[in-house]
């Protein structure tokens, strides 16, 4: 009666083996590494070529590495000690960024798991440590949505003024009042004409008529909820993109930039200690400019030879070829309201659609009319350095503020260009509403403290269980160890962030998980006390305890899930581990311990007694 079918034993064995494999990387520790990633959004990292380049550079310098690894966005080389790592960093830095003033790549020091590559190749990675354990800076930024709305309405006010002029509608003033734009008219006919003109040109505005006096007729325009939503999404996406570009500059190995909720952005910079610099960089703006290209024959050769013609500047185009651009600025990024990737309506080629505000559209129309057939350069200035994002040929006069850039572009490139154009500046101001800095020494201490608490608590429980329940107690202890193993494996697999509260949750969960085994063992004793045979007592003990274990774990899980849903920061780290721990404890406390008990007792025909400690019966002495 106390035997598991073969498949069940195999299944449990496989799960434990799986747990062991995925826990392994945590034991290997970390080795120093150098990480190379792209510093510019315009530059896609070619991982294969970069790997070769790093290997070549290291070989030339006679530095040994213990493996080069790559993922989608970065290439990392491992080294045997910190000294080699530092030397290698210099060599790689020189190879990849010959011009130190204008780095195209981020070369950063990092730590990599020292686990063998077969583990890495099956995605078995060590647990992902939170900032409180590894040290670093955490910012929570809030995007000022009311500010973005005001900015948008201000530009709408300008657009409406131009629109009224173009359609020759007479008005008595357009002003922004709070979250509305108010247009004044002297008579109803003009107002009707104005209303039509607005509705024909845009679907983003809702119009309401208001009469304050016979000759003071008003049209009150507000953004439709849909348009507001689009604006919010756009603002937060653009801010995230901009932050990405800027943080690349800091040379952080693994920055985290994520949206949190509707209007917040989390920025985590592991290993960064210089908070002041980080804040400076987060707060800086980049700018976008549109200028004309000087395609005079011979001028570019002349410029490359060293004498740049008067009134022009030499810039590099994306992809490398130099381009001579006039100094006069046609448009700045302020005039750009949106840039989206898409497709050309006729040729179906990938394209980028730009939307300019009213003033920008007028300038653009005038410039393009005069320069059909010429090239126009779109430049992005970051850290005072300019780069030509794209330089399309003007095919015809472009009016209406809707500009399309197409030709010689893949879909990916179109996406990149659109992102980059939007990244020119922050869509809305941001404010730091939460900051957490943890020094590296505190991080290491926290790991040690968390580890020690878990270790000593675990050992104390094992000693007690083995003393009180003897062999059965040992089985319970092994089951508890299996629980820890599976929990660590799950955390490693999910790459959930492990924080100090997370380690506390791990310890607490272990302390609670033993409950299931205590319940079972007490039940078995009770059955024995009531005169059941050892085999029957085991079966009944596990059977009867099951209901109780399920109930108690579910109630604990309810609390865990509530924490997960409503918790933030430290609480969430706690809740994730707590919930996972409850699940793994159900598996190990019931299945693993039962399997072991079956191995010990289930195979024997006759069991005289169980090694479960003394079973005291009230009627004996």
């Amino acid at each position, binding site marked *: 009666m106390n035997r598991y079918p073969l498949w069940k034993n195999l299944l449990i064995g496989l799960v434990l083996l799986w747990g062991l494999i995925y826990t392994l990387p945590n034991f290997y520790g970390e080795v120093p590494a150098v990480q190379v990633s792209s510093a510019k959004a315009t530059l896609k990292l070619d991982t294969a070529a970069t790997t070769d380049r790093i290997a070549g550079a290291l070989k030339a310098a006679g530095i040994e590495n213990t493996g080069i690894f790559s993922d989608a966005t970065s290439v990392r080389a491992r080294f045997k000690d910190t000294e080699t790592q530092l030397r290698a960093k210099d060599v790689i830095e020189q190879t990849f960024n010959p011009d130190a003033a204008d780095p195209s790549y981020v070369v950063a020091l990092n730590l990599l798991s020292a686990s063998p590559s077969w583990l890495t190749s099956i995605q078995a990675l060590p647990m992902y440590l939170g900032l409180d354990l590894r040290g670093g800076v955490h910012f929570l930024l809030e995007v000022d949505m009311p500010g973005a709305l005001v900015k948008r309405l201000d530009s709408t006010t300008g657009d409406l003024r131009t629109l009224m002029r173009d359609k020759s509608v007479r008005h008595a003033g357009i002003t922004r009042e709070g979250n509305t734009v108010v247009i004044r008219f002297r008579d109803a006919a003009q107002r009707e004409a104005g209303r039509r003109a607005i509705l024909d040109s845009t679907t983003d505005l809702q119009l309401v008529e208001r009469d304050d006096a016979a000759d003071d007729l008003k049209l009150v325009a507000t953004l439709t909820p849909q348009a507001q939503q689009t604006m919010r999404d756009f603002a937060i996406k653009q801010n995230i993109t901009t932050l990405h570009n800027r943080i690349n500059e800091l040379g952080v190995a693994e920055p985290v930039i994520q949206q949190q909720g509707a209007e917040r952005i989390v920025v985590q910079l592991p290993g960064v200690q210089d908070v002041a610099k980080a804040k400076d960089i987060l707060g800086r703006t980049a700018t976008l400019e549109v200028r004309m290209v000087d395609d005079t024959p011979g001028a570019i050769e002349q410029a490359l030879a060293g004498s740049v013609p008067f009134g022009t500047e030499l810039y590099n185009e994306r992809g490398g070829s130099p381009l001579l651009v006039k100094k006069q600025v046609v448009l700045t990024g302020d005039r750009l309201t949106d840039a989206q990737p898409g497709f050309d309506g006729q040729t179906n080629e990938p394209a980028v659609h730009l939307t300019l505000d009213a003033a920008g559209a007028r300038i653009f129309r005038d410039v393009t009319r005069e320069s059909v057939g010429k090239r126009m350069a779109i430049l992005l200035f970051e850290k005072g350095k300019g780069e030509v994002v794209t330089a399309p040929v003007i095919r015809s006069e472009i009016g209406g503020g809707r500009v399309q850039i197409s030709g010689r572009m893949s879909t990916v490139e179109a996406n990149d260009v659109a992102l980059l154009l939007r990244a020119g500046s922050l869509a809305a101001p941001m404010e730091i509403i939460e900051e957490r800095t943890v020094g590296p020494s505190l991080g290491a201490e926290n790991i040690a403290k968390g580890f020690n608490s878990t270790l000593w608590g675990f050992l104390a429980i094992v000693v007690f269980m083995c003393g009180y329940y003897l062999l059965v107690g040992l089985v319970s202890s092994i089951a508890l160890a299996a629980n820890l193993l599976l929990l660590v494996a799950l955390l490693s697999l999910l790459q959930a962030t492990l924080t100090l509260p997370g380690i506390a949750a791990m310890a*607490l969960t272990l302390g609670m998980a033993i409950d299931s085994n205590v319940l079972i063992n007490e039940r078995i004793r009770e059955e024995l006390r009531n005169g059941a045979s050892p085999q029957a007592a085991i079966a009944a003990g596990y059977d009867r305890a099951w209901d109780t274990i399920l109930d108690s774990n579910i109630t604990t899980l309810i*609390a865990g899930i509530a924490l997960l849903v409503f918790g933030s920061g430290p609480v969430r780290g706690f809740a994730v581990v707590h919930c996972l721990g409850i699940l793994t404890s159900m598996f190990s406390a019931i299945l693993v311990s039962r399997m072991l008990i079956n191995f010990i007792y289930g195979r024997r025909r006759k069991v005289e007694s169980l090694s479960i400690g003394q079973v005291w019966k009230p009627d004996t002495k």
Partner: protein
Amino acid sequence: MEFFRIKKDIPFMRHALVFNVISLLTFALAVFFLLTRGLHLSVEFTGGTLVEVSYAQAPQLEPIREALAGSGYPDAQVQNFGSARDLLIRLPNREDLETSRVSETVMNTLQQVGGPAPELRRVEFVGPQVGKELAADGSMALLLVIVGIMIYLALRFEWRFAVSAIIANLHDVIIILGFFAFFQWEFSLPVLAAVLAVLGYSVNESVVVFDRVRETFKKKRHMTTPQVLDHAITSTISRTVITHGSTQVMVLSMLLFGGETLYYFALALTIGICFGIYSSVLVASPLVMWLGVSREQFIKPKKEKEEAVV
């Protein structure tokens, strides 16, 4: 070895009234302290800046206080944290300060004070908008736990069990909070997590007892309700003490080795575990009795046959 050698069921229910009066008194005391003293909320809830620095030698606090007052923070609290070499500086949020720059100004000021050089250990800055949300989220989590557990227990057992388990365990939560209010221990986010975890954990304690109650009702027909409750408590008491002992060992280990960060977390758990045993046994069970639980609520004719086979 066996700790509990109990011959007869212990007549807990005979003293039910006494226990209820004790609970009511502690509960009232806890509420009193919560109202009069209030919780000492951490920077996460109140908003503000917290800077932890470490020195090679113990620094003088007075010059540091003066220097901070000199650079525009007369309301800075400077105190030792853990050891004489570690300092914790708290600054409340103020309207007129550029809040996100506070930590840098503080570090600059500290560096200018003579004596040993400070090493930055930790900075926490929380804007005013975040704190309010955390408090709201915390209350929502508490509410969700209560409702979730009540629904589960009502489905799985009976509404009387659900109600008494929740009352008993909320009583625990209030008492933990009462302790924190009385001693003015810092109430931080991890402590909140501990409180909610304890809520789930001690409900689980009540569940174990209730499971037994249900089983005893089905099996032993001749017992009265108080006898059934006594029997259920007595037969689970060994497990209760061992389980809680094990969990407490783990928590104790955190209390001893976990350092400052985990100290209050572990403390909240300790109080929670101790009162959890008491309340689930001696508060929840009498409540079930007062609410009028009886055998009829568990016996369904069909099920009885199955039980007869066992």
